[in-house]
């Protein structure tokens, strides 16, 4: 275990953290602000990944593929809200669970029909497939670095959008008191549709960025959905800032746990036993982290005021 390797894994943790944030940011607004249990948010990640992968293959250019895919994800969130979600706001949480679970099945199957059940692998663009030295003699994949930068840029964008724009103020006002905000002449319905579309858009971007790093396949969004729910809980439901801190924390703990835990276990267990137990125990770390946070801060690290 060298310093270089540790640094590399820290970057990997940061990378998975910022991607988790992109997914969790929209979800925390939907869940925390609109009080809507939206399980199909993972499907938005998948839609983004498929849109980008197929458009990249079609146009032969990664950047063009991404630029064309973003409006698709925006439209999918917008349409979904318009067609189904708006009829479910006033319903019981459990009804929302069942309906959005139905959506997951529908989207996964739609993708399976359209693109086949096998995973899609997209080649990295040549310009992004090299390595950069983050320290002297510490090469790091260029594309992962780009993912981190894009993720951080989006995070700043989300922060600016929520805290420093008129629309953001409306969203926050709507969260605080919906009836009062509506009485001030703000179109709450349109605002909700906008939040859904933007949330879908960021989730989609996350899908586009992790697509080339992992397998683009039907059902790829659900494990990410669960992890981003963990992020939201740790961060405090409805808090964008909390979601960012928690996402990086979860990304780091997950990645570092996977690397370090087998090494630590090997020092007092047999090699085979450690290799068997290590990854499973590492997967547990995130949930242990969440339980610990909830024991000491029952409403998350940054509970929104009010």
């Amino acid at each position: 275990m060298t310093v270089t390797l540790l640094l590399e894994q820290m970057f990997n943790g940061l990378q998975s953290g910022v991607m988790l944030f992109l997914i969790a940011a929209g979800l925390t607004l939907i869940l925390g602000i609109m009080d809507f249990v939206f399980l199909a948010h993972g499907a938005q990640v998948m839609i983004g990944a498929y849109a980008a992968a197929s458009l990249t293959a079609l146009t032969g250019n990664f950047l063009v593929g991404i630029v064309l895919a973003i409006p698709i994800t925006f439209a999918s969130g917008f349409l979904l809200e318009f067609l189904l979600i708006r009829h479910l706001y006033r319903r019981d949480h459990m009804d929302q669970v069942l309906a959005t679970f139905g959506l997951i099945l529908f989207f996964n199957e739609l993708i399976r029909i359209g693109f086949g059940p096998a995973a899609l692998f997209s080649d990295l663009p040549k310009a992004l497939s090299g390595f950069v030295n983050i320290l002297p003699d510490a090469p790091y994949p260029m594309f992962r670095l780009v993912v981190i930068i894009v993720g951080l840029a989006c995070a700043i964008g989300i922060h600016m959008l929520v805290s420093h724009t008129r629309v953001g103020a409306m969203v926050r006002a709507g969260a605080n008191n919906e009836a009062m905000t509506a009485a001030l002449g703000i179109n709450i319905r349109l605002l909700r549709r906008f939040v859904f579309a933007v949330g879908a858009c960021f989730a989609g971007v996350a899908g586009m960025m992790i697509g080339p790093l992992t397998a683009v396949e039907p059902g790829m969004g659900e494990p990410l959905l669960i992890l981003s729910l963990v992020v939201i809980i740790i961060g405090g439901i409805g808090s964008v800032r909390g979601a960012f801190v928690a996402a990086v924390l979860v990304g780091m703990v997950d990645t570092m746990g996977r690397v370090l835990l087998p090494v630590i276990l090997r020092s007092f267990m047999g090699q085979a036993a450690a290799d068997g137990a290590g990854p499973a125990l590492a997967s547990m770390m995130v949930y242990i982290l969440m339980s610990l946070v909830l024991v000491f801060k029952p409403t998350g690290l940054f509970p929104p005021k009010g």
Partner: protein
Amino acid sequence: MDALRIFLDGANRNRTLFVLLVGFALFPIYTGIADLPFWNDLAMRIMLLGLAAMGLNLVLGYGGMVSFGHAAFVGVGAYCVGISQYYGLFNGWIHILMALGACGALGLVIGYLALRTSGIYFIMITLAFAQMLFFLFVSLEQFGGDDGMSIDRAEFIIIDLWEPLRLYYLIWAALALSSVLLMFIVRSRFGVVLQAIRSNESRVEAMGLAPLPFKITGYVISAMICGLAGALFASWQEYVSPDIMHWTRSGELMIIIILGGLGTLSGPLLGAVVFLLLEEILPEVMHVVAPSYAENWMIVFGPILIAVVLFARGGLMGLVHQMTGRRR
């Protein structure tokens, strides 16, 4: 005679449940005549899932506690069978007792810790505990790890299990007994308090009752019923792997309950019947209607679930009540 009166009244109020139970009791006669042993297998799977869903419904539907980790109890119940067989214990009755004990104890610990939170935090913390148990069993190489372990048929002294129908009726008996037990629980003082907590916890407190012991007790009973389902599931499948406690299984249990009707005695079983029958029938239907998409039956299944939410308030039991003109 008081118990008998309550039983008859409960049976009258929950006709759907009792119709289903009688149906399951008579079903093997039909499959025997028509020579369709596969359908017996399906019926057992439906009963097992229905039993687990019924257990979860006590906390989810009646107690208003949305537990997203109940598959863990099913899994622990199943592993009680696997692990005791690993150590040479083959008595099925003891397996069941162990599953009840283990899940009861586990439910007590998890319930005690998780019930300090509520709402979405409770959902996530129950998920967290279930995930920890899931990964624990994945990491136990001794018991098969990820691949799971195969199980010999357990020996149920008195009712010997070599004939498949004996297991069928054992599962049926567990389901019927649990149904009657839950019927009594729901109507007891304890059950009434549990439902009162669901509708307004602070009002219950104001009446001088501490909600936590009631909630924990409910959680423990529900965990034990799921453990029972798990132990029988392992005997039925003759195999157990961590997959049985994957979070999607907890989700499936929740979906079955919401589909059938939250907080009704008949709902979970009806939900299990419809859910699993659709899983069997939809591919067949698709095969006829759109042969090239026979494998993609979920494209229809998803919208059916959405339609139930949009058009049948209170799930399928809501629909049943609408049709029979009775209010809940």
